[in-house]
């Protein structure tokens, strides 16, 4: 019954690249509900991208499993849309063709007009109506990433996976696209799993932030519930009473606590460890 209600359930996931080396991560357990926006934060090398690739079906985990809507995730699929770190647009296709390629893959029976219309709708959503005949090389980094986002949304996936989509963008562009993403997710009630390095981005976008300890032997150390009210806006985010408790908690984790679990994990003291659920500013108790 538990499984049927949960949108995505990941249990005891682990990954090792070499048999004799310690696993990159192990004992990863988490759940995502429909419509939830979940961010995962952790230092480089803790296996965030690997977890995302497992969810995308591009990589196999060494152990454990991921179940989405009661089905094991095996191989890539159109019900999961991915926005890649580098925009990953086909450089020989125009913006419209890139999106249409994805739409045609999802709806092969549609007519050309239907595909074009559908693609244009999603390009309009990210504010790229006038760029549809351009090639990716003629676009700025932010525009390319928007096309990537439009492409992922256009296949109307049940879950959207974002791998540090704004990492390479300047702060201004990033802010604009974050606002757009927030708007679109709200409109479509999209379930999102996103990797980020940016604490503020996580606070702005997500309902739930998963903090990963350092790898190898990385785990999900804490699941932080966003205590800032919904309808957050970039402009007034930092005026919210909950903002600093939240931000301080996240930064403290990254700077100080992220190493702790790794030491225990390497000694094998963490079997059966369950991540702590924290509500910063509301309940500051940390185990």
């Amino acid at each position, binding site marked *: 019954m538990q499984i049927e209600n949960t949108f995505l359930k990941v249990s005891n996931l682990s990954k090792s690249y070499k048999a004799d080396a310690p696993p990159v991560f192990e004992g990863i357990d988490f759940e995502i509900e429909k419509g939830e926006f979940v961010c995962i934060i952790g230092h480089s090398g803790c296996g965030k991208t690997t977890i995302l690739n497992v969810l995308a079906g591009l990589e196999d985990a060494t152990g454990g499993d991921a179940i989405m809507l009661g089905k094991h995730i095996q*191989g*890539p699929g159109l019900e999961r849309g991915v926005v890649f770190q*580098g925009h990953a647009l*086909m*450089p020989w296709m125009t913006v419209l063709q890139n999106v249409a390629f994805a739409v045609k893959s999802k709806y092969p029976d549609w007519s050309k007009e239907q595909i074009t219309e559908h693609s244009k709708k999603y390009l309009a959503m990210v504010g790229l109506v006038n760029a549809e005949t351009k*090639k990716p*090389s003629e676009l700025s980094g932010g525009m390319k990433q928007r096309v990537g986002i439009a492409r992922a949304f256009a*296949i109307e996936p049940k879950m959207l996976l974002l791998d540090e989509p704004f990492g390479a963008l300047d702060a201004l562009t990033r802010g604009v696209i974050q606002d757009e993403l927030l708007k679109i997710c709200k409109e479509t009630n999209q379930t999102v799993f996103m990797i980020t390095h940016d604490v503020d981005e996580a606070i702005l976008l997500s309902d739930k932030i998963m903090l990963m300890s350092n790898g190898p032997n990385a785990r999900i150390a804490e699941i932080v519930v966003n205590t800032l009210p919904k309808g957050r806006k970039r402009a007034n985010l930092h005026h919210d009473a909950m903002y600093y408790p939240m931000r301080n908690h996240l930064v403290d984790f990254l700077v100080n606590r992220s190493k702790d679990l790794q030491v225990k994990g390497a000694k094998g003291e963490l079997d059966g460890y369950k991540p702590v659920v924290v509500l910063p500013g509301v309940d500051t108790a940390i185990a």
Partner: protein
Amino acid sequence: MKTLSIKVKGAILSVVILLLCLSIWHMATTQKITPPPGISTNSSEYNSLMGQGGSEPVQKTGFPTLTQMGQTIYKQLSHPFYDNGPNDKGIGIQLAYSLARVGLGFLLAMIVAIPFGFWIGMSPLAYEAFNPFIQILKPISPLAWMPIALYTIKDSSISGIFVIFICSVWPMLLNTAFGVANVRKELLNVAKTLEVSPLRKAFLVILPAAAPTILTGMRISMGIAWLVIVAAEMLVGGTGIGYFLWNEWNNLSLSSVIFAILLIGIVGMLLDTAFGKLQKAVSYAD
């Protein structure tokens, strides 16, 4: 001079260099020649007395003068398609034979090399398995295949096509394999997450991504094929620009030989330019 672009300046210089070369040619060929060794001093004096040879700036044999060259070019170009039997065909017909052989051999090589290159580019196992053979076969001069081709095919014309095929196949094969194997992984991941069918992936993702590399291979192949056809036709004879060249050498018509050389160069350049255009058409900015 300041306002002229590099291109215009270059063109002017090219013309100057051409005129310089032509004038050197002219001076070298119209000089008085020493009497051939077979003729004694006496007979040379006799010739001189008879008003022959001597100091006249005319050359009867040996390297052609510019005027003779011009006459040959005019003669050949004014009737490019005449056909007076096996040993006397117009230059247009000879060129057409050569181009047809190159075209056919090249096309066959494309039909084999591109799908096969696709396969070994996609499959690391196939690549490892076939690579030793390719590496050994690639450096063999295509003309070395000629005896085997003549023995097995028993037709000189088809043997020529086979030689073109065998020299065109390797650069195309290796470039296709390299291009296909090096398609950016994230583009393949996009195709995977979109559940793109294998055929659609091959034609809409891998082929366009590898097209610039494949075209580079084709351009190299075409260059080699045009080099090889001349030698092959000299060897097997019958028709073609290479045969024409050899035949004119046997006729001791050096002006026709030079004309053929010029023509080979110009056609080779045109072929390369055409492939350069194609290459540009399929390349993309990242």
